[in-house]
């Protein structure tokens, strides 16, 4: 079965500095991977998705992620954090056999002025 592991439960950055949220996946075949963001008391918003096209995926709000098969990683990055980026971020793999999303445990991003 597919799974994802988010390596950090919390990440703190200063506004204007780079963001790195780490995610490793486990899959017996080429997976479809996603990053979703959840602001407090809100639903989930899709940031970006990887579906075996380009390994570097660009998403909304300046975020991007790179699929690295050799490292089984799909880390999320942003060159410069903004206060509005403070939220919970989920790395997600789709279980294509069963069409369901499998979520990581989440990483809370804190952005200080």
């Amino acid at each position, binding site marked *: 079965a597919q799974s994802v592991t988010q390596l950090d439960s919390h990440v703190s950055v200063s506004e204007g500095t780079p963001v790195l949220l780490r995610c490793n996946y486990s899959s017996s075949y080429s997976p479809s991977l996603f990053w979703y963001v959840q602001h407090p008391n809100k639903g989930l918003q899709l940031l970006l998705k990887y579906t075996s096209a380009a390994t570097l995926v660009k998403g909304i709000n300046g975020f991007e992620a790179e699929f690295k098969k050799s490292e089984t990683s799909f880390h999320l990055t942003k060159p410069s954090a903004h206060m509005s980026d403070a939220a919970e971020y989920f790395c997600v793999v789709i279980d294509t056999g069963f*069409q369901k*999303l499998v979520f990581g445990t989440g990483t809370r991003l804190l952005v200080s002025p």
Partner: protein
Amino acid sequence: DAGVTQSPTHLIKTRGQQVTLRCSPKSGHDTVSWYQQALGQGPQFIFQYYEEEERQRGNFPDRFSGHQFPNYSSELNVNALLLGDSALYLCASSLVRQGYTDTQYFGPGTRLTVL
């Protein structure tokens, strides 16, 4: 273009009661999935409906049941509520393409509190 909508926004019930949550999918979508998100955790898959049938089910007891209507909207029913059912319930809609489910888009959720 309306996105995924859910009702109600918040709900308070007592143990043993039954609850029904509702979801309207994004325009053009034909598949609805339900997820439970307990406080401080990632969402867990409950089940998915396509063509008015339960297509796949996660590890949830039979107290959790659902329905999909001809207009693709869906309901989630939970019977005999337990304190542990308190959570944010998220609905996601998507479109089946060539046999697989495309990107899922989420609604704002229904916050259920069981006292």
